[in-house]
C-alpha cells in the first residue's frame, strides 16, 4: 500500500493536540506505576524484615529489686531459648537500649534515674512453629509485665497503608488510561465529522471501513507514540531526580535502604509508552468502525 495519507488528519486541530495530551498522561502513568512498584517493594521489605524477629520487653516492676529483675530476665531468657521455632536469642545491653530511646528522650539518659526495661531480641527460624500466645502466657507467669512484640500490629498497619497507597497509584493509572481513551474517541469522532466528505468519496470509490479506520489508527498511533515517548522520558528524568534527592537527603540512614526499581520494573515502565500508543490506536479503530457502521 502506498504511503499516501488519504485523509488529511495531520491538519486537524483535535489531533494536533494529541501528542501533548498523551505525553502528559503517560508522564503521570509512569510516575504512578513506578510509585506503586516502589511501594510494593517497600511493603515486601518490611514484611520480610519484621517477620524475622520478635522482641520481648520486661519492664521493671514496682517493688522488685535489681537482683529480682535480673533473675526474672534470666528466667525469661532461658524460656525464650527453649521456645520452639525461635533461633538466636540476645539480651540487649543498656547502651543499646539508650541508643534506641535517645531520639525521644535525648542523649543524656541516666539508667539510675530512669528505670529502663530489659529487652530481649529473638530471631524467628520457623514462624509457623512459634506459638506466640503460649510464649506470652509462659513469660507473664515469670514476670507479669512481660510483653511479646512480634511487630504484627505495626507491620500490618504499615503494609495496609502501603497497599492503600499502591491501590491509589494503580487507580491513577486506570483513570489516566480511561481519560486517554475518551480523548482519543472524541478526537477521532471530531476527525470523522471534519472529513465527512472525503470519507464519503472514499466509500463511494469502494473503500472498506477498515481502509478508512487504518488511516485514523495509523495517524493516532504515531501521534500518540511521539507524545508517549516524550512523556516517558520526562517521567524517567523525574524518577531519577527524586531518587538522587532521596539519596542525598537520607545519606547512610535506614531510609537509604529503600528498594529501588530493578531491571524488570524499568522494562515494564519502558513499555508504558508503546502500550499507551497501541491502546490509543485500538480506541481510534473501534471508534471509526463503530461510527461508519451506522452509515451506508
Amino acid at each position, binding site marked *: 500500500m*502506498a504511503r*499516501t495519507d488519504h485523509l488529511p488528519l495531520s491538519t486537524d486541530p483535535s489531533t494536533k493536540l494529541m501528542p501533548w495530551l498523551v505525553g502528559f498522561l503517560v508522564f503521570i502513568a509512569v510516575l504512578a506505576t513506578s510509585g506503586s512498584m516502589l511501594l510494593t517493594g517497600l511493603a515486601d521489605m518490611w514484611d520480610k524484615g519484621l517477620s524475622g524477629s520478635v522482641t520481648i520487653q520486661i519492664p521493671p516492676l514496682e517493688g522488685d529489686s535489681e537482683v529480682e529483675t535480673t533473675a526474672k530476665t534470666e528466667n525469661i531468657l532461658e524460656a525464650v531459648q527453649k521456645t520452639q521455632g525461635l533461633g538466636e536469642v540476645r539480651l540487649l545491653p543498656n547502651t543499646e537500649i539508650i541508643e534506641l530511646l535517645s531520639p525521644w528522650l535525648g542523649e543524656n539518659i541516666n539508667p539510675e534515674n530512669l528505670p529502663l526495661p530489659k529487652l530481649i531480641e529473638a530471631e524467628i527460624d520457623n514462624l509457623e512453629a512459634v506459638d506466640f500466645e503460649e510464649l506470652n502466657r509462659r513469660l507473664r507467669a515469670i514476670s507479669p509485665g512481660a510483653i511479646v512484640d512480634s511487630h504484627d500490629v505495626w507491620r500490618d498497619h504499615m503494609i495496609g497503608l502501603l497497599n492503600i497507597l499502591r491501590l491509589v497509584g494503580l487507580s491513577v493509572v486506570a483513570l489516566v488510561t480511561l481519560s486517554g481513551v475518551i480523548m482519543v474517541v472524541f478526537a477521532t469522532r471530531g476527525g470523522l465529522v471534519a472529513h465527512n466528505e*472525503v470519507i464519503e*468519496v*472514499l*466509500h*463511494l*470509490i*469502494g473503500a472498506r471501513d477498515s481502509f478508512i479506520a487504518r488511516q485514523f489508527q495509523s495517524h493516532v498511533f504515531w501521534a500518540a507514540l511521539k507524545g508517549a515517548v516524550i512523556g516517558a522520558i520526562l517521567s524517567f528524568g523525574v524518577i531519577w531526580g527524586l531518587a538522587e534527592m532521596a539519596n542525598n537527603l537520607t545519606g547512610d540512614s535506614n531510609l537509604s535502604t529503600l528498594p529501588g526499581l530493578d531491571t524488570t520494573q524499568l522494562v515494564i515502565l519502558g513499555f508504558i509508552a508503546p502500550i499507551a500508543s497501541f491502546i490509543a490506536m485500538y480506541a481510534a479503530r473501534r471508534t471509526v468502525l463503530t461510527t461508519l457502521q451506522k452509515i*451506508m
Partner: protein
Amino acid sequence: MIRFENVGMRYGAGPEILRDITFTLAPGSFHFLTGPSGAGKSSLLRLLYLAYRPSRGLIHIFDKDLATTPREKLPILRRKIGVVFQDFRLLDHLSAFDNVALPLRISGVSEKQVQKYVSELLDWVGLTHHINAKPRTLSGGQKQRVAIARAIISRPKLLLADEPTGNVDDEMGVRLMYLFQELNKHGTTVLIATHSQHLIDHFGHPVMHIEDGTLEVPASASGLKRYQSMEESV
C-alpha cells in the same frame, strides 16, 4: 445487468423524490439521462452508485439484489462502478496523480502498476504536466478530466457521469465522449446525465428522460418484461 423495479426514494421523512422507477440497463449498453434541474437525475445516480438505499422497490446491480446484499459486500460492488460527480469531488489534499490512483490503491493494486496505469491515463487526458498539481490549482476543465480519469482508471463495469463535459470545451468534450465510447466497446455499461442536446444528437445513444421524479425510458431500457419472461423461461 442493472435492474430497477418500482423504485421509490425519499430523503429521511421528506417527500418522495423518485417514484416508481423501472428500467433495465443491459451489459454494455450506453444511455443518456436527461431532465430538468431538480427532476431527480442526481438522486437516481446516487441510487446507482450505491450512496443510498431505496425507500421502496427492488434494485439489482450486477445481478445482486441490493435489499439482501449485506453492507460489508457493498465496497466490492462499488469498485465495479466508476462515477464522475458533477462537482468532481476530488480530494483537495491529494495531487492529481494520487486522486486518480485512489481506486487502484483501495483495490490493492501494486504500486508499480498504479504508476504505469495512472501515468498513461493522465497523459491521455492531457494532464501529464499536472500530475503533481493539487486540485485547487487546476482549472474546472482540468479538474473534470482528473475526475473522469479517476472514474475509469479501474475499468468499471458501470460508468455513471453527471454532466461530465460541462466544464470542458467542445473539442475536449467530444474527446472525452469518445473515451467513454471506447470503454463502452470493451463492455462497460455507460449512463451519462447531461443537458447537452449537442452530445445526444452527436452520439445518438438512447435517452432516458426523468421529470418530476418519474422516468420515461426508451425501448432499450424498458426491457423489464423481456427480462422477466427470460427468467420465467429459464
